[in-house]
């Protein structure tokens, strides 16, 4: 067999194991960091308690899912013991439920409960996108270099994130709800414009 061969033979190298563990730990820390960033200072309105619970459960169970990713499901047998059945059900629940989606919704909901703080929200947005990217790398055992083709798009996204925060800081033209809506429409138009520019930004370079 020629060419680049990644053998799955024998002992997995310590470096690979350390890399996988580091990626999982980074995912959990990023999730927890976003959660704390959005939750503080604590608020007690608009089902904030429920959102906090949802976010904590999502981050914790998502971390558990990543930690148990390599654990094999017990093989089928005609009459499995209650312990084996419970373990199989537990693994199914941990692996099938979209925990990270729940965590993202909970964290964004917590952020909404606070008064407007645009740069704080922008940092949270960067943290959330990093959290989702690291979770994906951890679950697919891919290296960080797998994100290299997306670097330009992520750069454009970061610029839009900053513009959105800037738009949030602009003083309203008038006291009515219409002026807030106007700012929102402006931000939406910005995203749409970025989408139109995107094919030129994300064009594949020859060396990719």
């Amino acid at each position, binding site marked *: 067999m020629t060419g680049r061969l990644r*053998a799955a033979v024998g002992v997995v190298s310590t470096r690979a194991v350390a890399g996988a563990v580091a990626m999982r730990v980074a995912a959990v820390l990023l999730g927890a960091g976003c959660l704390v960033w959005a939750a503080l200072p604590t608020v007690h309105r608009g089902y904030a308690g429920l959102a906090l619970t949802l976010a904590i459960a999502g981050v914790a169970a998502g971390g558990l899912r990543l930690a148990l990713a390599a654990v094999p499901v017990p093989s089928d047998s005609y009459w499995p013991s209650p312990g084996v059945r419970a373990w199989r059900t537990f693994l199914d629940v941990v692996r099938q439920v979209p925990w990270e989606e729940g965590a993202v919704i909970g964290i964004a909901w917590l952020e909404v409960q606070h008064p407007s703080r645009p740069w704080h929200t922008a940092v949270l947005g960067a943290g959330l996108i990093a959290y989702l990217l690291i979770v994906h790398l951890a679950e697919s055992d891919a290296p960080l270099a797998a994100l290299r083709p997306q670097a330009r798009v992520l750069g454009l996204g970061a610029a839009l994130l900053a513009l959105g925060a800037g*738009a949030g800081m602009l003083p309203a033209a008038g006291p009515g709800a219409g002026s807030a809506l106007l700012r*929102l429409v402006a931000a939406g138009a910005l995203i749409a414009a970025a989408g139109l520019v995107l094919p030129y930004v994300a064009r594949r370079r020859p060396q990719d």
Partner: protein
Amino acid sequence: MIPNRPGSSAATELELRWRSSRHARRLLTLGLAGLFFAFLARRPEFAGLAAPALLLLAAGRGRRRPPRITVRAKPTTRRAFEGERLAVDVALHIIGDGTGESSVRWRLHPGLEIAPVGATAADGRQARFVITPERWGRRQIGTLEVTLRDRWRLAEGHASMALPGIDCYPAPARQRTTVVLRRLPNRLGEHPARTSGEGIEFSGVREYVPGDRQRSINWAASTRRGRLQVNTFAAERSQDVVLLVDSTSDVGEPGSSALDLALRGAGAAARAYLEARDRVGVITYQWGGASWLAPALGRRQVYRIIDSMLSSDAGYARGASFARLPRAALPPGALVVVFSPLLDQRFVEALRDMRERGFSMLVVDVLNTEPPARRRPEDRMARRLWRMEQEAIRFSLRELGVPIVHWDGEESLDLPLAAHTRRPMAARR
């Protein structure tokens, strides 16, 4: 390692089922949640929060994805002994566009009684998985799952294929010595016979008769007796050995059950007798009948014998009758070595019938388990009755002149057979 060609590597074309990845669904959730909260709270910074996720999704939209792939899976061998390691090399070729943009991930789901050695997942267009079959039989290596991810990791193409099967041979036990009959057929071999001939084992001295070779003259004896004396040697003969494997009862722990031990013992015996230049055949007794392989010589016969034992398929029918077996399967004067737990009454009756027809037999008892011990008096009584019945079966066979030795599967077969390998075995008529 069994001498064998590597397994064939026919390419299999697979259709990919593309769907959005979990990563894409998570990005979509973040984007939609950001937009929803932006409109709900009239705060444009949340639209900015949604922007990177939506841009990533938009960038990966509409890419061409290969509809089909070709997978080539090649095991290093199609035959292996229990516990032996073998590798499966897999390679992928993408049919259609987008060949340079996809990342490939393999995942092996091992089949029954197949244990992976090392990781069961690998990345790249080519990969190697190492496995070890744990128990004899015709085994499926397992299922191979291939996942292709596009450049933006937003879509995943899945396909799976069944890997080819392998023949797992029972790990042979240790046996170096052989049981030799006292009366051997008139065929050249390596066992010293009682008749004199052209062998190398000294058997005696007799007076010279015209025609004797000069080099066989024993000068010391000739000087002592005053007449020419010549050395005589034992003739060297071979024997026919028929291994009789009872596959009607498989009791005991899987991996060391009666049938496991019978197959391992038969494999060891076949090897030992074939190394002694004997002709060895096998008869596998089962519910569906008896399958057989006529005695023959040569190293390949070991694998033919094991193949014959593995291919015997147990069904549910009336027991086999050895009277119907052809002469080639059970030659007259052959030594019959039986591997059986002696649990099936019909098999025991068949052994008695064979003994009465004059075959020289030796039974290796491979029963190493008993009914479970329970407290109730009825259970204890049943256990005692079972033991007495077993003793009676063995006693009746011994009375017929069939020696029985017990083998636990751990020690070398030479130990239980020692009493019969030291001197030629007499066949009582």
